[in-house]
């Protein structure tokens, strides 16, 4: 299910992010911009924006490393104000996934997917669902070099007239 895939990918990313967040709050504060998201108030301190920190999530989408935008300014405000942290880009079977978490008073209050795209920047294909296929599309496969045959179970008697028997006979 599409939702299930996205959620599990997001959770995996969030887990990595959370571990990093717990280990590196100080780093986040150093790198964080001065945009507080607690109540939409602008602290006006954006002049001190760190190298990679940004409150604009879209600008983070291509960044391979973790970034954070948190309640900068005073360290005391960090605990009360909500802060957002961008997770690392996590490669998955379906493409790269990056999430952003919002943390307030030590608890995650929101998880947002920043990036759910594949390498071609198309929207991510979570689904591996089977879709109609024309026989002519698969008939291109050459049978000449086939080394083994798969089919519904053949009985010992049916084997004698099977394609597999012909292949085996050629290799005996």
């Amino acid at each position: 299910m599409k939702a299930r895939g996205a959620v599990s990918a997001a959770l995996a990313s969030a887990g990595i992010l959370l571990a990093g967040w717990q280990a590196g709050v100080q780093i986040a504060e150093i790198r964080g911009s001065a945009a507080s998201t607690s109540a939409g108030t602008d602290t006006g301190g954006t002049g001190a924006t760190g190298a990679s920190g940004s409150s604009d999530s879209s600008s983070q989408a291509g960044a391979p490393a973790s970034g954070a935008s948190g309640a900068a300014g005073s360290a005391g405000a960090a605990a009360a104000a909500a802060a957002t942290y961008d997770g690392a880009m996590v490669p998955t079977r379906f493409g790269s996934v990056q999430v952003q978490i919002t943390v307030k008073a030590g608890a995650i209050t929101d998880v947002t997917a920043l990036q759910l795209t594949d390498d071609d920047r198309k929207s991510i294909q979570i689904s591996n669902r089977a879709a109609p296929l024309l026989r002519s599309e698969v008939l291109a496969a050459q049978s000449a070099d086939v080394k083994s045959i798969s089919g519904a179970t053949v009985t010992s008697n049916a084997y004698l007239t099977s394609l597999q028997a012909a292949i085996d006979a050629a290799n005996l």
Partner: protein
Amino acid sequence: MPRTSENLPATPPRPLLKARTFQSMGTVISLTLPVATPGGNPPDDELAAAAAVVERLFRDLDQIFSLYRPDSEASRLARGDLSLRAASAAMRGRYEEAMAWRLRTEGAFTPERPDGVLDLSGLIKAHAIRESGTSLLALGRADWCLNAGGDVLVSGSPVPGSYEPWDAGIIDPLARGALLTGYPLGHGRGHEALATSGSAERGDHIWSAAASGSEFMQVSVLAKDIVTADVLATAIVAGGVPMLNRATDGWDVDVLAVRTDGRLLATPGFRAGVS
């Protein structure tokens, strides 16, 4: 470009493929290995030894699990002469595995016949293939193709040391003497196992919830391991499109399914592997 063909190093000749076959579990098992080319060191003995190990493994499992042998442990269980509690560790291990698959497939795969008799045959052949693969690798054989009645597990390459896949064909259920398509095993996405189940053949081992019949006449599943491929192929034939979607959502598999009207359904990965 100057003609220097005489000075070019001779491209190593392609190794010959050698096959050994034997009967077990009501079908024929084929083991195919690349052997050294003529002039080299033909390890025919190694092929014979490898085939003997696989054959012994199939026979031993068949002795325990065959319902066609009145003296087998499975038959004694079916008759009620033996309780599961008193059964061998091998029997209980497979029973546990089968029940786990029944849970994971939400009942589409079940080890119990409609009459309530425990029948693990849907799992035992795949288990035998899996165990054979483990034994072959333990023997130091890195390149082989094992086919048991249409279920295929490969390792390595038909050209040892290369990335050449083992090309496997899939039978056309509408014309059983012809191939519907092929898929390169052990290559690309790393599917090394291919199992195909049908609603027409051996219909006795697939019990569709809807007794009226399956939506699919044939389902092929590609997976990393043969038990997953085999169980899911069986489950999809029994469970129809809902089970097909559960399989492709929940496992790293690719599927080619043939509807009863002959139309095909395939996962994107299957499509990519074929082209």
